[in-house]
């Protein structure tokens, strides 16, 4: 059909034009994540390592205020055992109260507590980080165009600024960051953490693990969503076949070709 051809030519030329225009911006590295695709699942071990990286490195500046410690033991996540989750939560000091005397008090964390934030509020976080507020990481992967690929790319994308680019104090050059300037220093270095499972803690490994962990944090429902989705679509396909056959039968009374 002529008009369709016309339409596709217009779309095609617009797309080509668009790609040419945005060629200066580097696309994030494409990683073959285990959680992509229709049946994608998180790599359990990677999630657990990722939590370790988050806890030992990221958590000193980045909050994750929408997660609870209990989430770490729930199906589809890192699936730490009940004991491990209790131990993790107990490692944090939580402000609670007021008690019967009207005083706030601190106590050991419990699995039902939300992740403890490193700073009391956004202003304190910004003040401690040269004016740049380290974003909450609960939904960070969903909040960035490019998602997991982008987060991973930024983590491994630090390099010396190209000649001609001058950076202010406390600003770093990152080839994947939008605008190439980032206030977060390169915090990952080989061997920074010691993985319990013996995996070698290279920068690339840590970046992948923590990105996997953040992807789960942003979409804790992902595995159950994928599983339910397959069932729902299978059901709908079967039902539509049945309904199609019924339709053929019913319409054959008036019109053999519906």
């Amino acid at each position, binding site marked *: 059909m002529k008009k369709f051809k016309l339409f596709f030519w217009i779309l095609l030329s617009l797309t080509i034009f668009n790609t040419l225009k945005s060629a200066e911006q580097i696309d994030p590295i494409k990683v073959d994540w285990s959680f992509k695709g229709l049946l994608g699942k998180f790599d359990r071990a990677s999630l657990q390592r990722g939590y370790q990286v988050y806890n030992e490195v990221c958590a000193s500046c980045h909050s994750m205020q929408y997660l609870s410690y209990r989430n770490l033991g729930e199906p589809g996540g890192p699936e730490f055992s009940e004991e491990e989750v209790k131990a993790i939560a107990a490692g944090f000091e939580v402000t609670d109260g007021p008690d019967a005397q009207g005083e706030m008090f601190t106590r050991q964390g419990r699995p039902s507590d939300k992740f403890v934030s490193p700073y009391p509020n956004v202003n304190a976080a910004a003040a401690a980080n040269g004016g740049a507020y380290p974003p909450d990481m609960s939904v960070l992967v969903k909040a960035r165009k490019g998602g997991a690929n982008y987060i991973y790319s930024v983590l491994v994308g630090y390099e010396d600024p190209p000649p001609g680019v001058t950076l202010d104090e406390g600003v770093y050059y990152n080839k994947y960051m939008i605008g190439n300037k980032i206030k977060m220093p390169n915090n990952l270095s080989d061997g920074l953490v010691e993985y319990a499972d013996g995996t070698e803690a290279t920068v690339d490994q840590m970046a992948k693990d923590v990105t996997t962990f953040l992807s789960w944090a942003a979409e804790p429902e992902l595995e159950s969503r994928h599983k339910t*989705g397959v069932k729902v*679509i299978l059901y*709908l*396909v079967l039902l539509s076949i049945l*309904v199609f056959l019924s339709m053929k039968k019913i319409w054959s009374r008036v019109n053999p070709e519906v």
Partner: protein
Amino acid sequence: MSEQEYVPKSKAGKWFNDRLPLLSLASHLTDYPTPKNLNYWWTFGGILTFCLLTQIITGIVLAMHYVAHADLAFASVEHIMRDVNYGWLIRYIHSNGASMFFLAVYIHIFRSLFYGSYKSPREIIWIIGLMIYLLMMAAAFMGYVLPWGQMSFWGATVITNLFSAIPLVGDSITTWLWGAYSVDNPTLTRFFSLHYLIPFLILGLVVLHIWALHVPGNNNPVGIDIKKPSKDTVPFHPYITIKDAFALLLFMIIFAGFVFFAPNVLGHADNYIQANPMVTPAHIVPEWYLLPFYAILRSVPDKLGGVILMFGAIFILFVLPWLDTSKVRSAVFRPIYRQFFWILIVDVLVLGYVGAMPAEGIYLVLARVGTVYYFLHFLVILPVVGYLEKTEPVPLSISEPVLSGSADYSIAKKDNEKI
């Protein structure tokens, strides 16, 4: 309405029906003679009803858990996604449901444009449909504000600011809409209230839309008036219901594909960042279904002019039945109009595309050309083509073009009763 009066068989049924003729209504709805040549483009009415009910039901559940407060809204959405049982499913159905609703309504509208369903005697159906469409846009816009993400906040700021273009009273109106001196908590709470109200207004209009439809009956691909009931028609149930059900299932498969496997692909990443009045996103874009109008708005250098053209682009559709001068309804028999119909589709798609792009360079040029053509189509092409076009011969009945064998309405009806 129906040809012969319906009398319930049971005594109790008759007693009730004499006092409130609900059974007569049900009988009218199931027997309603429908052209038998309706193609799949006609299944979107049923699909849209499904979309509306889905949005209402999921919306009612979401409202049980959502908190309409500038400080708490974003967190309450995360609460729904994480802590409410299947909250993620309900929210993703609701947010993707809005997109599916618009996808279906655009197909429904363009079906009407192609087959001339807006023409006499169906002008009122068309106008009620446009009112539904306007309310849908209002509901969708306000719904997008509720999660209180960056796009929510800045989208609300851009759209409400449009009213400040009105001479003299513009700023006062905008302040009145906000309930504050900027988009703030009062804006959010009133948007939530209205977002809950509008779907029920739509539901009322849908009833009127169907009522108005049942007076002249359905248009059909051939676009001719038909005798009802006759061998050109089939009773609505089971013939149309089963076909609508099949089409709906196919639609639901696509819907489920988005909900379960790409729930955020139609949204914008920035809306997962909590609203921050101090930080403006690099590109403020509305949801995809509003993009063509956004392109028209930005194609005019003057703010008031842009607003007038944008609203004009919708309101021009209200007088469409009187702009189209052709006596022939269906584009099947209108060789010239048919070409322009497809050009209009391309035009709207191009406008949608440039609406998502920054308003500069080639995009601005395309937006301007697209806008001019959009109005040209309705104001010049449609009236002129109607006069000059030599239409192809229109058949006298549906049976003639689609079917050689004979089909008897009474047989179909009798069979139906056996089920």
